[in-house]
């Protein structure tokens, strides 16, 4: 399903300072797997997620998703691929704080210009699924952290993507909310979604539902 082959990624901070974020990484993730990337911050977890989501391109190597070379997609096609296949849950939720819940959830659909009815169906489905319908018209910045995360998850799922990517999903949550997030993960897994999570939260370690774990350190996989 997802394959990283000999991937290198360098960040150019300035001319004389090039950071090697990833070094010759090979990862293969199967369809329907719940895959966890462990490691301290700066270990390259987020970079891997970015590459899978085609948010950035590898300096060398290939990223193949669904037999498709996403590392060479032109920008517009990368966006299309992201929109249709990836649901991204960010650490800081990355919601637009001045918009309402429903507006935030609908954002990925805006460029599609769907008929109003179809868009509403999709919206209602995810709001119900992640239990945020009661706050549909509330402005996001007035919501609690947990609610905001549910909005973010709803947004990630509004297009019914095959792959869910989560970057430090529990970093800003207390334990109770973290546990309920894991419940949501289980639900998503039941829907046969491929899930990739980057985290250093020990809560995820040795979890039943986690199929595989990899630990990254300074851009290298620790076996």
């Amino acid at each position, binding site marked *: 399903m997802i394959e990283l082959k000999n991937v290198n990624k360098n960040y150019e901070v300035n001319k004389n300072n090039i950071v090697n974020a990833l070094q010759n990484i090979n990862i293969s993730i199967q369809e329907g797997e719940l895959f966890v990337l462990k490691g301290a911050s700066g270990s390259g977890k*987020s970079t891997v997620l*970015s590459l899978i*989501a085609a*948010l*950035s391109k590898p300096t060398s190597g290939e990223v193949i998703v669904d037999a498709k070379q996403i590392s060479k997609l032109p*920008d*517009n096609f990368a*966006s*299309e691929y*992201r*929109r*249709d296949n*990836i649901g*991204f849950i*960010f650490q*800081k939720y*990355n*919601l*637009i704080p*001045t*918009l309402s819940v429903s*507006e935030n959830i*609908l*954002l*990925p*659909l*805006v*460029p599609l*210009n769907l008929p109003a009815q179809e*868009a509403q169906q999709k919206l209602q489905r995810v709001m119900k699924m992640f239990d945020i319908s009661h706050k549909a018209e509330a402005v996001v910045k007035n919501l609690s952290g947990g609610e905001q995360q549910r909005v973010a998850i709803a*947004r*990630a799922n509004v*297009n019914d993507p095959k792959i869910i990517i989560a970057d430090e999903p529990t970093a800003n949550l207390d334990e109770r909310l973290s546990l309920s997030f894991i419940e949501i993960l289980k639900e998503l897994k039941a829907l046969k979604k491929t899930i990739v999570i980057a985290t250093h939260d020990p809560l995820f370690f040795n979890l039943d539902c986690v199929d595989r774990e990899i630990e990254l350190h300074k851009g290298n996989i620790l076996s």
Partner: protein
Amino acid sequence: MRSKINFYLIEYALNALLREKYKSFFIMSIFTLLTFLLTSVFFITNSIKYELQSTVDTLPQIIVQKIKAGRHYDIDESVVDDVLDIAGVDDAVARVWGYYYFENAGVNFSIVGIDAYEKQYKKSFENIIEDFDFATLEQTPSMVVGRGVKEIMKQSYYDEYFNFIKPDGSLKRVDVAGVFDGQTQLESNDMIVMPKETLKEIFGMDEMQATDIVVKVKNPQEVSTVAAKIKLIYPDTRIITTQDLQISYQNIFDYKSGIFLALFVIAIFTFFIIIYDKASGLSSEEKREIGILKAIGWKIDDILKEKFYEAFILSLFAYLLGVILALLYVYLFQAPILRDIFVGYSQLKTSFELPFIFDLHTLFLVFFLSVPVYVAAIIIPSWKIATLEADEVIR
């Protein structure tokens, strides 16, 4: 169909504008000011041109004045005969008119002498002749006065008649036969009309003399030829044609428009720079927002489109607002300040209103001078925003 208007995107663009209240407001103010100024200037120039044209149209095509020692002097009435003989002349009328200073009230009356049986050179005189019996006015020296004049005379207890002081110091009593309402404020405020003979007596003019001669030429193309011929026959005259007047007005006008155009090109350039600058300066909040949109699947094209929707909403709104404000400013409030810059000939003509001339063409013109310039200014900033690395800005 993809080509359908994306209302979600418009809604989003509108929201985006509202979120950046101060910036949007600032840009809109500048834009509105620009279109407002531009439209106002075009409206004013259109109106003045129209007014100028209609003023010039009512003026006699040619005025012949005798010049002696550099000053305007009485002209022989027989000049009319010679002028009439020039090919192309339709009519020539010897005018008798002048100013009379009424010391008591400290005002100048303008007095016009008319002959009831002549063709009149001004429409308002025709009306006066129809309303008053000039045959009897000639019997006992009497006159018709503007309503305003009547008031002024009354204040000095001249109700039935008025005593004019002749150049030789003696008095000439002229009865007030009636009051007329002038076509303009100006006319009724200072004009007195009386038979030519009576006026000549008051001014101490010779019987066969006139103040000046106005000439009517049927074919406007011939005016300059006729004028040249009169000058040839009477080298001691000054010939004023409407064309001369028009050219001198036009010169003042072109000069001012020229300055304006120069300023305007600078203004457009400044506008471009300001917009460019404002559109380039992005807050980290905005950058993050674009990053989010790209991360959740917006294409560069989508973001560009959204930016152009924003630009279009803003510019269209500002454009309409500017035009509406200009309409109000120019036609309702008669364009204070700006009008004075353009009305260079206020001393030539005391008062006038800017007539309402609505020209769709002007609106297109203003549109082409503002909206494309604005859109051009945001091309590069929008592109920079749209091609931001999402990955870098959302972390």
